[in-house]
Structure formats: structure tokens, C-alpha cells
């Protein structure tokens, strides 16, 4: 069953008189528990796709269905609520709230989803421990290494047990070793049933998915099923 299905999604950026058609009628579907990589040259519309399908951005035409509901017909508040309840995000590095400690960052989505404070703290701590950061709970982001920061971000995306995690170049700012650690973590969680949509430039990262979607000039130009390299 498709957990998410996009039909004819179109996105145009307007800045002054200029118009950039970043997505031109994109169709896309992801099954529950699937891991999809999105690749393509810079400027091809990968980030735009991720933003539009996750509801972070509005679209100009088409529809994004989540089961029987259409994402873009929801109000902003509903979409926000939906994100808090069932989505997680991982961006390139440095996306933590600098005035909050690691554990405070991770418990944020839990609190937003309405969890009890003590419960949230416990689950955030557990998730960070799982990321191998038990000794870094109380540190602020600027006291962590890039890899550590990104692991906190992953923890934050996962702590709320979302159905879908959207990742935009999660390893873009990391060295290959750290990148591998982060990706292993994601693979493990995907093995537990998490749906993963990962935008990446890294061929190695891209090839670990079930499916690899290629984009060019705002269009999906290929969609191939991959043989899993490793689990």
C-alpha cells in the first residue's frame, strides 16, 4: 500500500519577473517501509520535491495523497500537526536549535506531538544513547562535532517514531566514515519498518536504497529498483 502518492505535482518559484519551474508534473509514490533515494544534478529539483511532498512548501498544481487525505488541502495548522505526528526530517548539518542541548533538541518533536515531558525526556535520552551519544546529552550543538550534530539530527527525526523520514543530503557535510555510521543507523531503522526518502549526491549512499529515482530539470527521468547491497 502506498503511504504517499504524488500526482502531477508542479512547482514554480517566482522572484520578481523571473519564473523557475522547479517541478513540472511529477508523479511519485512510496510504499510503507520503502527506502527511496533521489539523485540528480544540482538544481534538478530534488530539494524542491522533498519540500513539496512533505508539505513544507506549497505546490502550484497536482496533489499529494496520504492515504485518503490530500496534504495540500489541509490548513497550515493541520499540516504542522501532521508533521509533528508522523514525519521526521534530516537536513544537511547545522540544523539544531543552538540554545538547546542535544537532549532538548531531540525531545522537541515529542513535546510537539503532545508527549508528557518526563516521557519525552526518557525517549529522547534513549534515542541519543542508541546513536552512541549518551555522553553528549547536555552539550549544546556548537560543542559537538559535525558528525555528532548530524547524529543528534537523526535522533531528533527518529525520536517521535515517525512513519516517514525525509532526509536532504544527510551526509553532505560529513566525512565518509561518519557518513557510513549515520547511514547504517538509517538502514537499521528502515529495517524496522521506517519509510525513508533520501536526497543525495553520493552514489554509494544512493545505491543502498530499495529504489533510486533520478531527476533532471524538474522531472523524474528514471525510477529503478535496486538490489540491496547490504542491510
Amino acid at each position, binding site marked *: 500500500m502506498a503511504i504517499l502518492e504524488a500526482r502531477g505535482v508542479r512547482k514554480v518559484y517566482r522572484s520578481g519577473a523571473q519564473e523557475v519551474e522547479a517541478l513540472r508534473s511529477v508523479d511519485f509514490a512510496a510504499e510503507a517501509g520503502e527506502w527511496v533515494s533521489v539523485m540528480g544534478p544540482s538544481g534538478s529539483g530534488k*530539494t524542491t520535491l522533498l*519540500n*513539496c511532498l*512533505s508539505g*513544507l*512548501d506549497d505546490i502550484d498544481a497536482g496533489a499529494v495523497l496520504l492515504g485518503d487525505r490530500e496534504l495540500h488541502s489541509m490548513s*497550515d*495548522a493541520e499540516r*504542522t*500537526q*501532521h*508533521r*509533528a*505526528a508522523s*514525519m521526521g*526530517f534530516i*537536513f544537511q548539518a*547545522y*540544523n*539544531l*536549535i*543552538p*540554545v*538547546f542541548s542535544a537532549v532538548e533538541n531531540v525531545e*522537541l*518533536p515529542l*513535546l*510537539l*506531538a503532545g508527549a508528557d*515531558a518526563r516521557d519525552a525526556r526518557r525517549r529522547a535520552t534513549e534515542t541519543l544513547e542508541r546513536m552512541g551519544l549518551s555522553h553528549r546529552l547536555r552539550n549544546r550543538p*556548537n*560543542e559537538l562535532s559535525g558528525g555528532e550534530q548530524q547524529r543528534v539530527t537523526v535522533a*531528533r527525526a527518529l525520536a517521535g517514531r515517525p512513519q516517514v523520514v525525509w532526509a536532504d543530503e544527510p551526509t553532505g557535510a560529513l566525512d565518509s566514515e561518519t557518513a557510513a555510521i549515520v547511514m547504517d543507523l538509517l538502514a537499521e531503522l528502515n529495517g524496522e519498518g521506517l519509510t525513508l526518502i533520501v536526497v543525495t549526491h553520493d552514489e554509494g549512499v544512493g545505491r543502498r536504497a530499495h529504489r533510486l529515482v533520478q531527476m533532471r530539470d524538474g522531472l523524474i527521468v528514471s525510477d529503478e529498483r535496486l538490489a540491496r547491497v547490504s542491510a
Partner: protein
Amino acid sequence: MIIAIALSLPFIVILIARPVLRRLALRNAVRRPRETLLVITGSMLATALMTAAFVVGDTFDASLRANAYTQLGPIDEVASVPLADASVLDHLAALRSPQIDGVLRATTTGASAAVVNSAGIASAAAPKAQLLEMDFAAARTFGGDASATGISGTTPGPGQAAIAQPLADRLHIGVGSTFTAFAFGHSVQLRVVQLLPQRGIAGWWTGREFVSYNAFVAPGTIARLAANSKVVAAPPQSSVLVSNLGGVESGDARTAAVVHTMDAALAGTPVKVETVKHDALDLAKTAGKSLTQLYQALGFFAVAAGILLLINIFRMLAEERRSELGMLRAMGMKRRSLVGAFASEGWLYAVVACAVGMLAGLGVARLVMAGAARIFNQRDPDFRLPIRFHFTTQSLQIGFTLGLVIAVITIVATSVSISRFNIIAAVRDLDTEKHAPRRWARVAWGVVVLLGATLLFAGITSHGVVAMLLGGGFAAVGTRFALRDRIAGRLLVTVTAGSALLWGVAAVSVAVALGGDLPIAGFIVQGVLLVIAAVVLVTEYQGEIGGALSRLSGRRLSVRLGLAYPLARRSRTMLTIAQFAIVVFILVYISVLAAMFGSQTDSVTAKVGGRATVYVESNRANPVPFGQLKAAGAQAVAPLVNVVADVTPPHATKSTKSFMSGFDSSFVSMGPPVLSDRGRFQTDADAYNYVLSHPDTAMVDDFFLSQGAGPPSAAVSIGDVITITDPLSGRSQHVTIVARSQNDWLGNGGLTSAATLRSIYGPSAVASHAYVRVASSASFSHTLEARYYQQGAKADPIRSLVEQRLSRQTQFFTLMRAFLAVGLVIGVAGIGVIMVRAVRERRRQVGVLRSLGFPAAQVSNAFAIEAMFIAMEGVLIGVVLGFLCTWSITLSNSFGDGLSFRVPVTAVSLLVGGTLLGALLATWGPASSAAKIKPAVALRIAD
């Protein structure tokens, strides 16, 4: 101006000679016009206030000057004698000198004037009028400019009068009407043949009022009235007026030379030349200056807030560009260039801001003076000074330059301090780490401690509150930094800031107890010390405060987020809190003072009136026969001799004009005004009786001889010897001050025995004033004025005189508060600027939060909570400190005893509510724009 240019030169050079730096500076300024506008608005306010303080002084100066011209015109010097001795001046009247372009003889006397109907009832009366005799043809040629004399037409003939406009207005008469003048127990009917303006000689007034109720009469009229005086009255006087060569103002330069020539002509006589014009101009200058100083001193608090805002703005600018600047450094830009680029950008803002501020200052001054004019208009009409708005380009220049100097110093200092970052730390946005103080730093701070201790000691021995406060402050700051790595930070901060706070509150009481007084500088130092100490203390415990608040809110996420930023950026928060605290402090302080003074009617009435209930003034040339008042229902009557004296304070060579009053034993037995310092005497009565029996003693009030605005400057104290001189006869006497009263709201001037004044003034010392005790003061006053209009009687219940005075004082406080409210605008604008920048800085973070499912409404809540938290802390500190200080001052009695501490609930609630509302409104824009941030857009922003 030269300073401003010299200061700007380096920046202009940088902007011209270094294209890269220029581009950096200009681009940043132009890229975001709205924020540039905010920065400029924020930094212009301090300049506006300083300029306004100067222009207020200018206006007051110009108003007094303008009045000097209407009452003097071409007259520069005057020599006067009693009419009986007129021949003494003959020699002077014939004086010719190239320095002089006018010599004029005149005879004058005080009189009262009234329009009396056939039944003998006055339909209109001018209790304080003046009769003058002079030759109009000669008067017109006096000085270089006939129109400046105000004199036209021919000399009035017998039974005729040429009257000045104010008298015509007061009596509601015009050309052709008749009125009666009263003096020396006689009267004369006069027909108005001409109206003259209050200008120049036509406005010449020998009294101290600002209005000239002049009636020019036929030569000989005054002598006839005085010939068989039916009463004991001050005799008429004969004067010679002299005009220095040159215009109305430029003639002043010749004053010394002319006085010299006149003295030669008067050799062998006791007559003293009065430099009336010079004195009037001098007074205008002093009064203007003192008003400027007062407004500047109080405005200082708002200016300090402005400086803090400027620092904050610049640090935020720098923080925002930190990685950009770090990158530039990494690419090899020298630190000096970096400072240059950054400071040049700041200079650009500063120049524009100071120019705008200067103009805004004119507006502020205009408003202040409009308020002042309203207050002046409630004075006795005779003392109403017409306010003429005026400013000098010099004032504008000084305002601009001061603003620019402050801004540039702030900007350069901030630029230098932020350029000293670690490149890596900047690129990664790390906090710069603190290292242990170097040895020399410790030594330097040790020296500061020593300096502070020395100052403190010196302050205590000399009772100087400024030194005491400064010394304590330095000692605390020095200790804090010298021992930085020896004692746990928190303990050290708590102890040093805590003791500075306590000392700041206590020092004033200690100084007053030791016998010192509270100068306005002490007040400023106290405010600054207290605010710094309190803000440091609160900052130290910010974590606990935030934690408690967040727990109170049930750990709501928006509250946690809202508090997280101010707690993380402590130094920025500290500056903003201080910005609010310092202005709120002074406003609360003034509000409490106003409330305390405003509620003083009963006690002040009892103090200034003693056991009397009505104060009576009358014409010296025709005084009220006070002996008859008992029959008219008065329970007690104490007549006072009232004269104008040249008073020379101890160690001074120049005299100041002041009233002196002489009392007799009836004053003591009636129950005289209460003394505030009775010196070595057991009771007030002892002091009064001593003065009665010792002709070489006197008492004065705390404001005696002080010409400035603001708190008493105590020109004369107990034990001082002052010289009292009769300006007419030149006779003088030394008197020793033996006691003091708090103020002289009834206008007696210094007090001595009537006998003392008679011995100096001879027949001119007449009892023209009186304290009267009656059952019903209002109706008695009314009847008295009606019955004794010929004597120019003016009677007022003492209580209502006090009420008027208090209400003027309260209004003056209100005016000060309005002026300082501009400082609150600084605080509010500051929080607006800071929140706008905060939203900009955190757009990406907001994007992340929104992507995590943080609702838009909560984003704006978090920003609003952040702003309110900061504003509230600042306001609270200010309110608490304001109360603490005023309360401690009432304990020490430094504003006079009987003043009880009062919380002006409405005023303070309005102040607090208004400030917080303002802060909320200022935050509303940025907070709602934060809520509108689109996550997809924000996430694309590079940090």
C-alpha cells in the same frame, strides 16, 4: 563641528580609499533599508535628547533676554538716589563720553493705579504700578535707535499720562480714559493721552516683575505727591540712565569702561552704578545654562539607554556577520581593516542618525517648552515670562557633535572588541572561550580596587557622595575582576554586585547623615551604580529565574523556547535589561518625588506660614496701614519691611539682587515660619528672638541667592557672613546667618529684623507686607484687596499660595517625565530592533522548528515571550531601585523633614503598563513576521 569633522575623517578616508571596504560597508547598509531605518531610529534618540536639552536652555535664555530688551532696551547702566538727593546726580547727568550715546534723567515711584467710579469703588486696579517722569524728546534720542526706546509723542502735561500697554490692559482703559494713581497717601487723577509699548525706556521697570505697569506723568507730579506724605512710605527716586555706544546687545562690551567713566563722575558720592543690562544678560545666560544642565543631567539616563542600544545594535550586526567576517579574516583581511570596514558602516549610520536626531531634538525641545509655557502661565501674571522658542546653531552643532562622538566611540570600541574573535570560533559560531586573567590584568584590577578604596575614604572624610559612590563602585568592579579565578564566579559576583547595590542605596543616607548634600551628579552616579549592580546580579541568576518561570508555565514549549534565547545570550540580554532599567529607574524616582511633594500641602502650609493664614503685599510707596487690620477682624498681624537688596555672599565680589524682609516682635509672637535648621538654638522662637535683638544677624532659606533650576545649591550656610547693600544709598551692613528655613515660597527673601533694615535703608524701609492670622482666610483676603486697592493690597490665603506652588512643582515633574519618556521610546525601540534582528538571525531555526511540527502561532508566542521577559526584568529592576532610592532618601531627610514616602500607584502602574505595552507592540511586528516564515524558504537560508 571641527570635532565632528576630525572624528569623521578616518572613516571618510576609508570609504574613499578602500573600495573593498567601501563596498562591504555600503552594501550592508543599503541591502536592508528597513533594518537600516531601525538602527538609525534607535541611535538618533540620544542625540535628540541632548540637542533638546541645549535648545531648552537657548529658549529660556532667549526668553529672558527678550524680556530684558522690553524692560531695558537701550538702557545699559542706571544710577539712582532718593529724590531728595537728586542733585548728587547732576554731575553724572551732564556726562559726555565717546563710549556713551545717551544719558537721561528720570524720576520714578511705586504707586498703585485704579479706575474708580463715582461711588469711590475701584472697577479695575493695578496694585503694582510705577509713575515715571522724563523728557520725552530727550528719551527718544537716548541710544542710537529712537524706536528701541518705545517713547513717542510729547512729554505728558499736568493731569495727563502716557501709559504702557500692560497698564492699559490691566485697567481696561485706552486713550481718553481717566484713572487714579495712589502714592504717599495722596492720589492724582490722570487722563490717558497716549499708549506706549512695553519696550525700551517705555518698558523700564525698577521692580523684579516681568510686566511693566508704567504711567509716564508730567514732571513735578511725583514730587507733589511725595511732598506731604501722609504715610511712612518708600521715597521716590531720581535716576540717571546711560546707554552705551552700540546696539541693544553689542553695547554690553563697553560696560566696564562706561562704569569706570560714570564712577569718576560720581566720585565723592556713595552712589553705586548698576549695570542693569549686563546683569540681565548674565542672569539669562546663567538661567539658560542651568536649565540645560538640569535637562542634560536627567536626560543622561535616557542617553545612557541610547548608548546601550547602540552597543547592542552593533554587537548584533557583528554577530550576524560573524561567519562572514571570519571568512574575510580567513581569506587574509587584516584585523585593522576589518575594524575599519565595520566602523565605517557604523559611522554612516551614526552621521545620518545624529543629523536626524538633531532635528528631532528641536521637536522635543519645542514640546518641552510648550509644556513649560503652560506652567509659567499659571504663575502670578506679573511674573509670567513670555516663552520664545529659540535655538542657536551652536546648540545644534554641539548636540550633533556630542551624539556623533558618543556613537563613534561606541562603534569603534564595539568593532575592536568584536574583531578580536577567533577565526575558527567565528566560522563555527562558537562562544569565545574565557581565559584566566593575565598577571598584569590582575595587577591593574588591583589598582582599581585601591583607587576605589581611596576615593571611598576621601568621599567619607569630605562628605562627598559622588566620591563615596564612585569609590564603592570601583572597589566592587576591581574586586570582581582581580579575583576572577580565585573565588567561584557566582559567589564573587553575588558578593561584589550585592555590596555595590547595598552601598548605592545606603551611601546617600550616609553622606547626608555626615552633613553632605546630594548634588545632581551624585544622583546620576547613584542611578548608574545601582542599575549596573542590579543588572549584573539578575544576569548572574538568570538561569534560576528562567527555570522558575518555565516551571511556573508548566514547562510550556513556547515559554521554554522564548526564555532559552535570552538565557543563552546573556550579555545581549543584560544590555537590553539595563536599557529599560535605567530609564524606568529615573522615571519612578521622579514620580515618587512628585507624589511626595504633591501631597505636602498641609505640612508645607504649616511650615511656610507658621500660624498665619494670609499673606499680604502692598505698595511700598503707599503701604496698607496694618495697624487697622485687627479692627477688620484679624486675630494677629505681623507687618514685614520688604526691600530689594544687593546681597554679596561670602567670598564673592559680585552681589546678587534679592528681597530682604524685616520682622518685629509681633512676627515671633504670632508664630513665625518653621525653621529647617535652627543652628545653635533650642527653639525656633529662640532663633527669631536672637535675630530681633542682634542687628548683625539674619536667616535665609535653602534656595537663597540660587538662580538655577533644580535642587538647592546652598549658596549660603549657617555661620556665613553676607553683606546687605541698599542699592539706592549704597549703605551696607554685614550680617551673620544664624538659622535656615527650607524654602521661601512666599517670596520674603532673607529674614532679618525690621530695625536692621531701617538702619541700612532709612526711610525706604517701610512695612509693606504682612502675615495675618484670621478665621476665614478667603473672604478676608477678598475684603482686604477691595478695601485697600489704593495701597495696592494683594492678599492670598497662604494655603492657596502653597497649593499653586506645589501644583507648579508637580507639573514641572510631569514635564521632566515627559522629556524622559523619550528614553522609554529608546527602550521600546531597542526591543523592537533586537527582535527584528532576532527573527532575521533565527529564520533558519524557525524553519527547522516548523518542519518539526512547531505551530506558527507558537513561534510568534515564543518571540513575544522572549521580549516580554527582557522588558519585564528591566522594568522591574527600575521600579524596585526607584522605590528603594526614594525610600532611603526619605529616611535620611535630605529633601527636608516631614516628607513621607509614597507610592504613586497610578503613575507607576501607567509607567509599567505603558512600557510593557509598548514593548509588546514593538515585538508584535517581528513576532508575527516570524510566524509567517515559510519552512521551505527558511531552510534554504545559509547560516
